[in-house]
């Protein structure tokens, strides 16, 4: 693929270089890592090498990239079962993610968690939670610790539009606000709550943004397919959190290119909707952006090649890796390393 040519209409928009080329290349590279690894995960599923379920972020890469790029080391990510993107965005190697999906010994958790529970504490990825809403209070608690100890890290909690209708959403945001905690709640509104349009099951048009006022928070609704917008919004929210000004609730508009999970062909979508959104594919948006800022297309192509090579090598390594050792079946149930519940 090559970078798209500039569009004259957009060239009239004043260019803002507060982000800078290095960060922009990083944003692009992260989005490409996610795109390639997610596409590969899907291919491996079709080859019956990825078992169980998986929930892809194809089309939602800009959110993961923007929020992760604006983080500092030590900041903490809390993800849902749609967590591959956020895990990769914090720098976890694609091989470990794909290995986990494939149940191989080189997997991030050696196959004990699977696709929906990707966790890498050393990268600040504090878990992927498969029960809707569960991790909003947990991220709030991590932020409570930061405030109590005077630590400077921010907890960032990603969730989908469907999560805004479960009770834990309300409980967590209310607590975070009254305690002024350094936590950022990020709603990735991809328009569908699993198989149902979110608009059909929600009292307000914007499931997160329109509820912000109920918690005394600013209404923040952004284009989740533009990594620059995401990055700037994230940076502001983190600064606010670090300054002791409390949480933010950010709704990012986006669209998932695939179904809810691997089992879902997404036939409930109106005709043409996917195609319309694909015109605003975050990767295409960002290639345009890079071109607009005069980044040479060769530089972009180099990144594309490098990323594809990483994902190819990761795939080969995973295919060659042995299945998870069954020696670990009974380990780490309790802190003593074992599983004994009685003497």
């Amino acid at each position, binding site marked *: 693929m090559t970078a798209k040519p500039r569009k004259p209409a957009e060239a009239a928009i004043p260019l803002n270089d507060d982000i800078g080329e290095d960060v922009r290349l990083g944003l692009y590279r992260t989005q490409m890592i996610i795109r390639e690894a997610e596409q590969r995960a899907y291919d491996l599923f079709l080859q019956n090498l990825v078992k169980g379920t998986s929930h892809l972020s194809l089309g939602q890469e800009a959110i993961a990239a923007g929020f992760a790029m604006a983080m500092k080391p030590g900041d903490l990510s809390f993800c849902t079962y749609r967590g591959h993107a956020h895990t990769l965005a914090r720098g976890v190697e694609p091989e470990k993610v794909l290995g986990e999906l494939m149940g191989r010994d080189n997997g991030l*958790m050696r196959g004990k968690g699977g696709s929906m529970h990707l966790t890498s504490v050393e990268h600040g990825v504090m878990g992927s939670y498969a029960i809707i809403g569960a991790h909003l209070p*947990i991220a709030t608690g991590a932020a409570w610790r930061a405030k109590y100890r005077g630590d400077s890290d921010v907890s960032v909690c990603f969730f989908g539009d469907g999560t805004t209708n479960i009770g834990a959403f309300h409980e*967590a945001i209310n607590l975070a606000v009254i305690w002024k905690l350094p936590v950022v709640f990020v709603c990735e509104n991809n328009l569908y709550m699993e198989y149902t349009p979110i608009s059909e099951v929600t009292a307000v048009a914007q499931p997160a943004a329109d509820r912000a006022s109920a918690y005394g928070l600013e209404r923040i609704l952004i284009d989740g397919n533009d990594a620059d917008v995401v990055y700037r919004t994230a940076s502001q929210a983190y600064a606010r959190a670090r300054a002791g000004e409390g949480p933010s609730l950010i709704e990012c508009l986006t669209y998932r290119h695939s179904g809810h999970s691997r089992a879902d062909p997404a036939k409930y979508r109106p005709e043409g909707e996917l195609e319309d959104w694909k015109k605003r594919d975050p990767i295409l948006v960002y290639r345009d952006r890079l071109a607009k800022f005069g980044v040479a297309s060769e530089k972009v192509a180099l990144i594309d090649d490098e990323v594809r090579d990483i994902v190819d090598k990761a795939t080969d390594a995973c295919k060659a890796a042995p299945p998870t050792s069954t020696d670990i079946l009974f380990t780490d149930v309790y802190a003593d390393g074992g599983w004994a*519940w009685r003497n």
Partner: protein
Amino acid sequence: MAELTYRDAVSRGLAQEMERDPDVVLIGEDIGKAGGVFKATVGLFDRFGPERVCDTPISEQAILGAAMGAAMTGLKPVAEIMFADFLGVCYDYIANEFPKSRYMTNGQVKCPLVVRLGNGGGARFGAQHSQSVENWCMQFPGLKVVSPSSPVDVVGLLAAAIRDPDPVMFLEHKSLYATKGEVPDGEIVDQLGVAKVLRHGGDATIVALGMMVHRATAASERLKAEYGIDCTVIDLRSLVPMDTRTVLASVAETGRLFTVEENPRVLGWGAEIVSIVADEGFYDLDAPPIRITAPNIPLPAADALEDLCIPSVDRVVETIRAALVA
């Protein structure tokens, strides 16, 4: 040595650990300025301040979730769920989050927290404020479940629970809060998973938990005085880890096993004990084990009805007498 109520033992145990470790923080409804609806945290807010004794909204999911997030990142939170029945609105953390976080992350995530719960009946609060929820907790691999019956055990087991690296459900019995017992001065730290043999006797083994320990003990005294039946009474103290060795050793001596459980009969902890004894101590048994439990119905409120449900001293005496003397 001082005489302390069970409720004062809770605040003493918490204070002992908070004094020792600044990472120990408390979170719950009305636990701070109000001192807890059961007055089990009186004095801690004044002593340790609002940063460490944190009043929350009525948000049980936020309480347990926040405790977990804090525990994962270095604190040792002690959360209070006022009435154990309220676990129903935050069960996800008990069922899916606390106990599985370590395993499914291949040991990366740690969850060293304690959840204190006002458990059990006898206070005429009806079906939604009186339940014994120990079975709700013990079915999840990864959790520990503790239930003290005396003030000294409250202090020692609470300290052990707070120092434990695993998530611990700490079931305080509401009807025991006003009871008193001797508690030695100075630091007390007990051990989880060690049952206490409160009384030795060769005729039968009675295993009990929480408030049922007191009824089992009173019953054993009457059985001895009125019928000459000499019972061993074991206070299990912790369901996970469970001290099955002590139970099996006692059954080997007595040949008879009775469990006294406040929970409804189906899937009560006693069923697990009976199953283990059937597997591993079958040839020590002289007769089928007998479970004395609440019937499998919601708990009613009225005195006359609730008293019929929760095993009474009379029922324990009569059941054991009938089994041994008939």
